[in-house]
């Protein structure tokens, strides 16, 4: 009996939450039905009304208006030019959304989007069993460009090279600016072998750029997500980051990579124990040489 208790509690807990939600919706619906202005407008709004709930507030008592402010995207006065206002709000929304997912300087996606998409791709990998790869690319001598040509030139470099890199990737790949001169590349449904090929091509392309007499190189750290492993998002991201660090340490213009494969399995294998070692070394003691 005792064992069942928590289970039961949990169910009722969930039910209450569901009921609460339903209650809330019902009260709003009831409220909307009562107000002819709102229901009229919503009917005209059609399918999109769920997305953008705007309330025209003229003729509404103050208490009702307060209530609505929690649920609606916007509460506007009836006197305002409705169409213009909708367009404006839509535009604002879009801008807000895009501001938070794209990098201002280059127009590429930003780190936030990268991490979001990484989560999506990792989940997809787990579902389909196909690996996915990510790479972090860092320019080796960006500081030189910045220092000798000025920051505006450095910015221009990042923007143009970033967009050119994007053009050199496959349509399914994502490239994002993670910050500074660091770029993240996400390659869905791609094994390490292919991903390294892509990284190599990118590296070659970067080497061929002559930016006002500056020749640039890039270091790339890569990691493959093995769907059978349970690496968390941050862990996977860090794997690539560690590889980037290793690539930098190796010298410039290098690619370093890791996979969830054998290397880690070797690390996980039980090493030769002290006891085994001791016995292995004992042979000489049996009979000294010569």
């Amino acid at each position, binding site marked *: 009996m005792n064992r069942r208790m928590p289970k039961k509690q949990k169910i009722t807990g969930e039910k209450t939450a569901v009921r609460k939600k339903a209650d809330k919706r019902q009260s709003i619906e009831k409220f909307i039905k009562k107000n002819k202005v709102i229901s009229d407008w919503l009917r005209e709004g059609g399918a999109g009304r769920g997305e953008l709930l705007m309330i025209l507030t003229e003729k509404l008592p103050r208490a009702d208006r307060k209530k609505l402010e929690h649920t609606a995207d916007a509460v506007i006065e009836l006197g305002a030019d409705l169409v213009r206002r909708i367009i404006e709000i839509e535009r604002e929304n879009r801008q807000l959304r895009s501001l938070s997912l794209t990098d201002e300087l280059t127009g590429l996606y930003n780190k936030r989007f990268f991490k979001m998409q990484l989560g999506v791709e990792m989940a997809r990998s787990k579902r389909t069993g196909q690996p996915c790869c990510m790479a972090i690319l860092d320019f080796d001598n960006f500081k030189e460009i910045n220092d000798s040509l000025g920051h505006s030139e450095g910015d221009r470099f990042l923007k143009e090279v970033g967009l050119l890199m994007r053009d050199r990737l496959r349509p399914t790949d994502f490239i994002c600016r993670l910050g500074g001169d660091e770029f993240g590349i996400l390659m869905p449904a791609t094994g390490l*072998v292919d991903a390294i090929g892509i990284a190599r091509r990118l590296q070659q392309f970067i080497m061929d750029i002559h930016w006002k007499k500056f020749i640039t190189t890039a270091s790339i750290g890569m990691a493959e997500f093995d769907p059978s492993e349970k690496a968390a998002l941050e862990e996977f991201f860090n794997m690539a980051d560690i590889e980037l660090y290793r690539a930098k340490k190796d010298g410039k213009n290098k690619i370093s990579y890791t996979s969830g494969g*054998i290397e880690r399995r070797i690390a996980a294998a039980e090493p030769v124990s002290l006891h085994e070692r001791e016995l292995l070394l004992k042979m000489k003691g049996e009979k000294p040489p010569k």
Partner: protein
Amino acid sequence: MKARKKKKPVIVCITSGKGGVGKTFLTVNLAAALARKGKKILVVDCDFGLANVDIMLGIRPARTMKDVVFGETTLRDVIVKTPGGFDLVPACSGVRDMAQLLYERIEMIKEMLLSLEGYDLILLDTGAGMTEVVLQFNLLADRNILVINRELTCLTDAYAMIKVLYQLFGRDFFDIIVNSSTDEKEGDRIFRHLDSICRRFLGFPLTHLGSVHQDEDVPRSIMNQEILVQASPHSKIAESCASMAGTLSRWRA
């Protein structure tokens, strides 16, 4: 004349864990001994960091494994005939990215190796160490030969290799060659020592393929870039190689 059926070659990987144990010397001589028995043998130099089968044979290959890994060449195009009567896929020395890059191509190379026809045996001469590439080649092979000698570091490295291959891939069948032993007895003793530890801790026995004795013929033949089995076929070492080759020739994939 027997009708020759398409036969899958037996892939044999020769490893040691520690370097400088005599893998390459043994590979070359075993291959030559097998060739003398009329077998079609291919040696693949898998030591990509520091290749040396070609040096041991005194040949200068125009194309190497490098062309397979970096270029569009297939394994078949790289194969060269050697004075030892066997074929060779030479590796290239000192290409820094090679070992790393090979990992990417290992699946492709595996497929190429498995699709080669007309060979009785393919001997893979791996590099030292327990790198991913070395393990991959060991995994690919039908049989694993470990070369050991009396050095303690060599024994511990060989044991570590056996343990990893057993733990990771469930390999529990290894053929041991004891190299540069002073006599038959010592060779036996070194083998039994490793064997007893394997039985005790890993639960399976090892197979003693043979012992090769210490002889000044060995460094001399290496210096002269000749194959001992050919240059002095009646020497003790050549005879040990021939007897091991006899065992190898009976292996089936």
